[in-house]
């Protein structure tokens, strides 16, 4: 009963954030996109239907995960969720909690702590006890926020547990633009320095940093126009108010289908299965990849055994048919990484944020 009440209140909460719009004032991309859950957060999460569960199942294959066989050290696991309720991250975690709880044998509860560009949630999650009673949902803002606002945490203040979902950015331009490839686009931009305007989802946010890193790698001079979330950024391109936009293909999907926008490339490690004809930035020589990841981290110094239990519970949830079908219909890509892989990814991408934060003059003053 209590659980339901909490859920309802959390949900109420969330949405109110969306209504006010004030809550989305955070500098980071997803914080604003969280404010309009469906428009951008859900869509950005909305990754490809592809690759489902390959990695997850390969990990799980060696040891059969049987629920109830582990003895979880505490009575309840609370997942602190920095994004608002009703957004993409929140919906996915809530879909997973039932089977995680079944595996661990204790209730798993999601508690949203939105606000301040997710700084509130991460700050609170970091200060919890490392006994397994509380973990935090990790999203890409965990890397971006420390560079743009005064917060008391970095990704190093957490124990990495695992990653379970990722999506990537893409480069989009107006459908009637004179360039059809990234090369032509870059050549055009070089001939017209400062004329190309990139819409992004918020200052210092993931997509802003990605666009800046790409412009850097291509050696072009562009103007970055920040909007409140990935959805509005995509709209700005579709409405002809900017020349280019780098957000996730899912956020751009509706405009691509209506013939207003064309995609030139994706910034993913490999070609996306749902867009097999679209080259990656890496293929074309622009090795700028930022991952919009979703995973779990815990407070510092968590017991490795507890970490293992939560990893197993996450994999158990990812293999659950209900979770699988939820992720497929909602276009979430399963992408399981264990703690080491997850941490390596965090380290690699943190360097990009650090580099661009200085170049874009975002570093907190």
């Amino acid at each position, binding site marked *: 009963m209590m659980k339901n009440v909490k859920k309802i209140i959390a949900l109420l909460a969330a949405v*109110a954030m969306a*209504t006010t719009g004030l809550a989305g004032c955070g500098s980071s991309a997803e914080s604003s996109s969280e404010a309009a859950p*469906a428009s951008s957060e859900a869509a950005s999460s909305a990754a490809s239907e592809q690759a489902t569960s390959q990695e997850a199942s390969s990990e799980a294959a060696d040891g059969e995960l049987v629920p109830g066989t582990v003895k979880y050290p505490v009575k309840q696991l609370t997942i602190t969720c920095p994004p608002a309720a009703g957004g993409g991250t929140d919906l996915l975690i809530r879909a997973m909690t039932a089977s995680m709880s079944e595996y661990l044998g204790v209730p798993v509860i999601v508690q949203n702590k939105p606000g301040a560009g997710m700084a509130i949630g991460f700050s609170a999650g970091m200060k919890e006890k490392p006994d397994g009673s509380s973990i935090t949902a990790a999203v890409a803002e965990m890397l971006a926020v420390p560079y743009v606002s005064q917060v008391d945490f970095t990704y190093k203040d957490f124990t990495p547990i695992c990653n379970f979902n990722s999506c990537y950015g893409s480069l989009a331009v107006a459908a009637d633009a004179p360039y059809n490839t990234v090369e032509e686009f870059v050549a055009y931009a070089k001939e017209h320095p400062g004329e190309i305007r990139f819409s992004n989802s918020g200052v210092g946010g993931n997509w802003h940093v990605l666009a800046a890193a790409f412009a850097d790698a291509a050696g072009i001079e562009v*103007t970055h126009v920040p909007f409140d979330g990935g959805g509005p950024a995509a709209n700005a391109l579709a409405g002809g108010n900017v020349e280019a936009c780098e957000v996730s293909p899912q956020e751009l999907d509706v405009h691509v289908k209506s013939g207003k926008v064309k995609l030139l490339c994706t910034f993913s490690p490999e070609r996306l299965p749902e867009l097999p004809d679209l080259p990656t930035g890496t293929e074309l020589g622009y090795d700028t990849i930022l991952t919009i990841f979703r995973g779990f981290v815990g407070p510092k110094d968590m017991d490795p055994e507890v970490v293992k239990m939560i990893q197993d519970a996450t994999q158990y949830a990812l293999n659950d048919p209900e979770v699988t079908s939820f992720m497929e219909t909602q276009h979430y890509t399963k992408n399981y990484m264990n703690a080491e892989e997850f941490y390596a990814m965090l380290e690699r991408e943190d360097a990009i944020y650090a580099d661009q934060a200085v170049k874009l003059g975002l570093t907190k003053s």
Partner: protein
Amino acid sequence: MLLDILMNVFRPAMLLSILGGVAMGISIGAMPGLTSTMGVALLMPMTFAMDPDVGMMVLIGLFCGAIYGGSITAILINTPGTPSAAATVLDGYKFTMRGEAGRALGISTVSSFGGGIISGIFLIFIAPILAEIALKFSAPETFALAFFGISIIASISGNSLIKGLMSGTLGLILALIGMDNITGYSRFTFGSTFLMAGLSFIPVLVGLFAMSQCFLSIEEIYERRVMDNTTKRSIPTLQDLKTIFPTILRAGITGTFIGAIPGAGGDISAFVSYDMEKRVSKHPEKFGTGIPEGIAAPEASNNGTTGGALIPLLTLGIPGDANTAVMLGALMVHNLTPGPQLFVDQAETVYTLFAGFMLANVFMLILGLSGLRAFVKIVSIPRQVLVPVIMVLCTVGSYAINNNFNDVIVMLIAGVIGYFLTKGGFPLSPIVLALILGPMAEGNFRRSLVMSNGSYAIFLERPIALAFIVIAVISLFLPIIKKGIKVQKESKASA
């Protein structure tokens, strides 16, 4: 096809879900602190198990009902149930003070219905055209709209323009708190992480209106001042309906347009329509004293945004406001990807939604009118009982926004400020308007300048933006010019 659609709409499950949605919406809207967006999000997961069209209709019904429901508390207890009803307070509560609460509620119900139906007609017939206009609305246009909106402060200031401007400025200053959207710089946060996100709008609104009203009532109870609780007339007269008909038309259309613009919703459109009606009225001085047009304008307008907001949602996949943003998620869950394709692939579902939307407005009218007598009874509840209940609702509502106790503190402070401002004769509506429009104006002004590389010409080169700015300037200076002409005429006459 038409027959199929009607068959689809008039099946028991559908009718029941629309009715249920509208009824729930009205109750949620009427509660201060609970808004239509919360209601839509709360209900969304429950619609997953339903048929796509039935599930969507529950949400649309709730959306329409909640926007209307906000006016009930605005009229009865001087507390807007939702931000959209903030403008309804201006004239609505005056009716209740005269014992005509029923008449006011009747006007609000009919106007909301009228606004909803007008927006529905636009939705059905010219959705694609409006959607194209909405897409052209970018930063400069949004800034110009907000700039125009801020000029409205002049017409909602009540007796004293100076006090109204002071209230408006206070609202603008409060809106500055938090992280700046364009550069990410923290302003007036004093190192507090909580303030970094800015003040949440709902706690401030609830505190300013509801909590301060509670404080005032406590004072009245303490002083044993007796309020006239008797209600005289309970339904609007035929003359009322005749008076408000043109108002509903104008406000409904305005609401539809503003609703279609992404990022602008019922709260803004209600103020814009109120202002517009005051300008075209033959007796503008009566606005704010409790006249039918003063309720009809904001109510027809905010319900007009319901159909308006659905236009870009369905045709472009762009949500027009926070409610439809949540609905976009619901559409995706049901595998209905909005956009031009939806009208081709799922034409039947789309037109079923349109028919259902009209029906939701009819149900809203029926429920509203039949509930009139029951709603009015709220006024006769002894204040010793009503005030504590409202205070509890305010506290719970504010906490529920972010699960954060700091929001309750914000609400209480806003309540105390609202109490003293009311005592000092400062109007509260300008604060709310400025809080809504401040961030919108500022962010889009600076975003426009980034887009234009710093050239102010961007506001003059774009026709829609220019039009709004011209209207704002004219509306600001027209009263002064009019006064000048009047003075001249009088001096000539006396000479």
